[in-house]
C-alpha cells in the first residue's frame, strides 16, 4: 500500500496537471503548484473522498504545503 504522500502526490498530479517531481513535501499549493481557489476547493473534495477524512473550511485554509496536507490526513483518518 503506497503511503499518504504517494497517494496524495498522484491525486495532485491528476487534479492540477503538474509533474510528479514538482510535488515535493515543501511545495506550496498556490505559489508552487499553480492552484487557484477553484482548484483548492476541488482538491479538498478529492482528498475527502480518497482518504475518507472531513476537512472543514477553517482547517482547509491552514493547509499551505503538501506536507501540511499529509500531516492533516494522517492525524485525522
Amino acid at each position, binding site marked *: 500500500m503506497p503511503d499518504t504522500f504517494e497517494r496524495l502526490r498522484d491525486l495532485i498530479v*491528476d*487534479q*492540477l*496537471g503538474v509533474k510528479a517531481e514538482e510535488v515535493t513535501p515543501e511545495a506550496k499549493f498556490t505559489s508552487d503548484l499553480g492552484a487557484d481557489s*477553484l*482548484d483548492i*476547493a*476541488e482538491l479538498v*473534495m478529492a482528498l*475527502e473522498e480518497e482518504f475518507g477524512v472531513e476537512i472543514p473550511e477553517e482547517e482547509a485554509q491552514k493547509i499551505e504545503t503538501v506536507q501540511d496536507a499529509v500531516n492533516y490526513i494522517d492525524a485525522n483518518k
Partner: protein
Amino acid sequence: MRRVVITGFGVVTPIGNDVKSMWQSILESRSGTARLTAFDPTPFSSHVAAEVKNFDPLQFFDKKEARRMDRFVQFAMKATIEAMEMSGIDLSKENLDRIGVIVGSGIGGLNIIEKTHSAYLEAGPKKITPLLIPMLIINMASGMIAMRYGLRGPNESIVTACASATHSIGDAFKVIQRGDADIMVAGGTEAATTPLGFGGFCSMGALSTRNDQPEKASRPFDKNRDGFVMGEGAGILILEEYEHSKKRNAEILAEICGYGLTCDAYHITAPDPNAYGATKCMENALLDARIDRTEVDYINAHGTSTDLNDKLETLAIKNLFTKEKSPLVSSTKSNIGHLLGAAGAAEAVVCILAIKNKIVPPTINYETPDPECDLDYVPNLPREKELKVVMSNSFGFGGHNATLVFRKI
C-alpha cells in the same frame, strides 16, 4: 461601409474532426449517424445519434485545462485553434483590443449539470464541484477562447436554440461592420447528447426512430423523414474587416455580406404554418446584402428532417423565389445530423467550401419525393457548379430565424 470577409475556419463534426475530413465526407456522401454510444439508448424511443468520434481533448489541452472545460467548450476551443491557424493571424502584430469573440450554444454544459446533480442526490451538497457553474454557463466558450489568445474586444454568447451559431456569426459580422472590432472569432458549439438532452428531444417526438438504419435516419425533404438526428460538434469562423485582411495579405475565403433575423412569434416549438418569419428572414438578409433574389445560387437549408421544418422551409423558399429562378437547396444535416447550437456554424463553413470548390453539397438519403417539398435538393451526390451567392438558414425553438449571405470574392 466596412466590408467583412472570412479568413479562417475550423470544425468538430460527426463526419470529421477538422475541415478537411468533414469536406471529404460530404464529397463522399457519408452519414455521421450511428447507434448512440455515450450511454445505453435502449430505453429511449430513438437509438441513433450523430456523435463526434475519437475526440481526445488531451491532444489539444493540458490535463488541467481539459478538466475545466465541459465537452461543448472543448469542441469550441479545438475548432478555434484550427480556425486561427488557418487564418494566419499573427497576434503579436495585432491590437488585441480590436479582436473579439461571439460563440453561442443552444444548451450549454448539460454534461456537467447531470453529472453533478447525480453526485448531489447521492451524497449531498458537499459533492457539488466548484467547477459546476464555470463549466455549465454557455458564455464560457467565448470566455475561454478570449483567455487562450488574449482577445480583449467585444465578447458575448448568443442563445437562440438551433439558430445560435448563425446569429453569432451574423452579430459578429455587424460588430465589425459598425467598427467595434477588426476581427471576430464567431460560431457555435454543442455537446448535449446526454440522457436528459437526448431524452428531452425523444419525449417531444422530435428525433428519428429509424433505429434499424441509423445512417439513413437523417433524410431532409424525403417523404419518409421521421425526425431529426441529434448531433454534436462545433464550427468557428474568423471574420475580418476587408482592408485589414488585405493589409496582412490574408487568404480571403469568401465575403459575408448579408444577415437577416426575425421571429415567428407563433409557438414554442412549431414553425409558423405560413412560414412568414422564415420568408421575411431570408428577404431581410438579401436586403442587407443589397443582392437581388435572382442572384442567389444556393441555399444551405436548415433542413432538419422533421416533417414540419422541411415542409415550411420549402414554402418559405417558394414564397421568396420564383419557380424559374429558384436556387438549389440542400441540407448538410443529412450528413452531420443536427448540431443544434453549432449547426449554423458548421453549415456556414460548408457554404464557403462550396463557393471555393465550386461544388454544391448534396442532401443524402433522398429517396422518395414529397409533393410538399418539390425543389431541387441536390439529391444524394454533390454537384459541380460555380456559386457566386450562397445563403444559409437556421431556425430555433422559440421561433428564432436567422439567415446569412456569403459571396464569392
